[in-house]
């Protein structure tokens, strides 16, 4: 995928500028049950298709993005700043 990712702050940037973390999941509340936490830390839908993933623009604006893309076709639908939003399409 993702030879280039549409950073909402920097525009299309090559993959090598990014650090990828994995599924863009919300962190459970501190007092959520053990099951919720184990699911958050370890279990993954791992879909074959549409997927939201955390990418960090390490060599660019240093913002964490949620990159929406397709794991089968490698189409990138868009990327938004995890805190600021601002979805951009490629």
């Amino acid at each position, binding site marked *: 995928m993702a030879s280039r990712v549409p950073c909402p702050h920097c525009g299309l940037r090559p993959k090598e500028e990014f650090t990828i973390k994995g599924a863009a999941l919300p962190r459970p509340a501190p007092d959520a049950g053990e099951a919720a936490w184990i699911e958050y830390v370890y279990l993954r839908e791992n879909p074959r298709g549409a997927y939201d993933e955390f990418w960090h623009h390490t*060599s660019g604006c*240093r913002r964490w993005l949620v990159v929406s893309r397709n794991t089968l076709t490698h189409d990138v639908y868009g990327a938004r700043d995890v805190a*600021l939003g601002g979805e951009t399409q490629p």
Partner: protein
Amino acid sequence: MRDSALMRRPAVASEPVRCGDLLLEAPGGSILQLLGKAGATPPSDMSLPEVAGASPGLRNAGPGQWFVVTDRELTGPEIDALAARLAPSLHVVDQSSGRFRIRVSGAPSRRMLAKGVALDLHPERFPVGTATSTLVGQIGTNLARTGQDSFELLVLRGFAQSLWDDLLLMSREFG
């Protein structure tokens, strides 16, 4: 020790280098990093009166963050004054030693930089006055276009010599 010789030693001790029409320089001066809340707008008063005499430039460094670069080295009180005025919306971090500034100018600048920069440096895509952070080869930089054929790069001090050497290598064919 109060009389010790205090010498500023920049990361790369080099005279300007010319490769044909290309010129590589290290202008020195000061570099301040401004930290705002993500989403903040740039400092409203662009004149930066505290450092006005140092011909400051403002460089985008990601949401809510900027670099101020000056050709003259700022004094502690000048930085303090600027920090005081910008507080609390912006924190000022002195990076004059932490980043090293390199100026590249001359007609082949864009062609030379394209060897390391994935950005489209076409003047309509990356116009004069724009700055952004990006890789030059393997090294992260803040790249600004200061003129049609001139660019400035800010690089972590520790990588400055490596970047300088890389740029010389990239420039060889123009010399």
